[in-house]
């Protein structure tokens, strides 16, 4: 077969050409929403998820609304001492922002351990929140997949389910893990997703934004048809806290997490005053460990208590044929993250009283 001939310079007859769609560029959120109109359209930001899945014919929008020129790329102080991040802020820019590095260290570390430099340069805050699962059956476009085709079955449960599959929050309909690192840090910090649609603006608590698969894995988030993420605002940082992101994977870079942990700790002497724990790689959504946190408050910041917290956090986890190792692995990630975050909290407190 000839490709790229004079008669067919656009490869339209080639079997592996991407589907066709129409394209428009929005200059404002209002015009983006109006153009999207909630019908067979997709917002295009960095494109690192959307273009990947359009090429696989898994996402099939008929119209793309390019929001790269929409003025949503500021990082500004938020209400009550927090931080407001525009949806179009690129992952690289967010990771290197001075305020983020100083007050939300875990977020910077999570971003920089995600993806590759090239992907981080284009991926946006809003897009990172919206990224899709990495399950190979979802991505192959043909295997039974309740997310892609509700009711068709889940190929992963009895199939290959190692790297990118969860042990927390799974159901008999879907076991794919949420792949974002940024979202794990944001879950630990506490945040709000601000969206705008034809019916106005809404604020969605970060912990409620992503949905468990349950019996409807095709519903991944709370957005209504034409809603566009405009900002994510972080809660005020915990004073004098130390934080860290530990990401464990088969190779040391450029791979999704087998298990990861975002930990934030503040100390009162040798005792834990406030603590946040969130997990990646092991949950069907970014996984906040409320019970483990509650059990740590007022306890000494020691390895023994970190281990107890890790046990609590992974209680009720469901192993599958190839990913049972994630349960002890996640416990190690939690213990290490708590240890390192506590060490940093110690250093911060010492610095203050020096």
């Amino acid at each position, binding site marked *: 077969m000839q490709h*790229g001939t004079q008669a067919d*310079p*656009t*490869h*339209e007859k080639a079997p592996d*050409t*991407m*589907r*066709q*769609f*129409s*394209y428009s*560029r929005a200059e404002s959120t209002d015009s983006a929403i109006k153009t999207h109109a909630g019908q067979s359209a997709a917002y*295009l930001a960095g*494109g*690192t998820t959307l*273009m*990947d899945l359009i*090429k*696989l014919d898994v996402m099939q929008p008929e119209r*793309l609304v*390019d929001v*790269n020129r929409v003025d949503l790329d500021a990082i500004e102080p938020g209400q009550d001492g927090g931080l407001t991040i525009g949806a179009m802020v690129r992952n*690289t820019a967010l990771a*290197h922002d001075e305020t983020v590095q100083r007050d939300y260290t875990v977020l910077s570390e999570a971003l920089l351990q995600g*993806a*590759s*430099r*090239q*992907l981080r*340069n*284009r991926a946006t805050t809003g897009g990172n929140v919206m990224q899709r699962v990495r399950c190979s059956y979802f991505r192959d476009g043909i295997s039974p997949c309740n997310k892609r085709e509700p009711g068709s079955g889940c190929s992963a449960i009895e199939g290959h389910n190692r790297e990118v599959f969860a042990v927390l929050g799974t159901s008999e309909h879907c076991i794919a893990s949420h792949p974002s690192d940024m979202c794990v840090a944001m879950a630990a910090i506490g945040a709000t997703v601000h969206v705008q649609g034809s019916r106005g603006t809404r604020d969605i608590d970060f912990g409620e934004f992503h949905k468990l698969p349950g019996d409807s894995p095709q519903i991944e988030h709370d957005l209504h048809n034409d809603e566009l993420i405009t900002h994510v605002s972080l809660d005020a940082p915990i004073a004098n806290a130390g934080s860290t992101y530990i990401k464990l994977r088969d190779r040391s*870079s*450029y791979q999704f997490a087998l298990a990861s942990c975002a930990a934030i700790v503040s100390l009162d002497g040798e005792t834990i005053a406030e603590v946040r724990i969130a997990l990646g790689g092991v949950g069907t959504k970014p996984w906040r460990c409320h019970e483990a946190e509650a059990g740590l408050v007022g306890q000494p910041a020691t390895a023994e208590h970190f281990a107890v917290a890790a046990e609590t956090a992974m209680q009720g986890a469901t192993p599958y044929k190839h990913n049972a190792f994630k349960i002890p692995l996640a416990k190690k990630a939690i213990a290490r993250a708590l240890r390192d975050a506590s060490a940093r909290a110690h250093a911060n407190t010492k610095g203050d009283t020096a």
Partner: protein
Amino acid sequence: MDSNNAPTDTTVSFRINGKMQQLDLPPNVVLLDALRNRLGLTGTKKGCDHGQCGACTVLINGEAVNSCLALAVVHDGDDITTVEGLADGDTLAPLQAAFLEHDAYQCGYCTPGQLMSATELLGNDSVGTSDADVAEAMSGNICRCGAYKNIVSAIQQVRQGR
């Protein structure tokens, strides 16, 4: 869309390696294919076509990106640098000369992408000084021939001004 329901072509222009180029193309053409198939700039390679290998890396406004995931129409008006833009006529860029000196390639397929990522790295103050820091910064470029050690050496030579 036109009467056949095919999206109509859009005119886009970029500055590529310092030269203004104009193309008429439909929306579903990625920058990688526009560069290779419509502009004859075949230095940039198609490896995985899904943003997983970095062989397609170019600089857009000085930033390394995977051109296989970048729609050409999105980058109307942008400044693009490809591997063809590194040398000054017959004079290799210091980075290219260092790659030669350190044997930083075998088959050469990943090499243009490595050079473009390395070019961005050279201008990036936030990358630490160690070999491990360089390897981490370059982790978006895969090399099946395993030339990583020599790639890092070549980059470090240029960074250290040797």
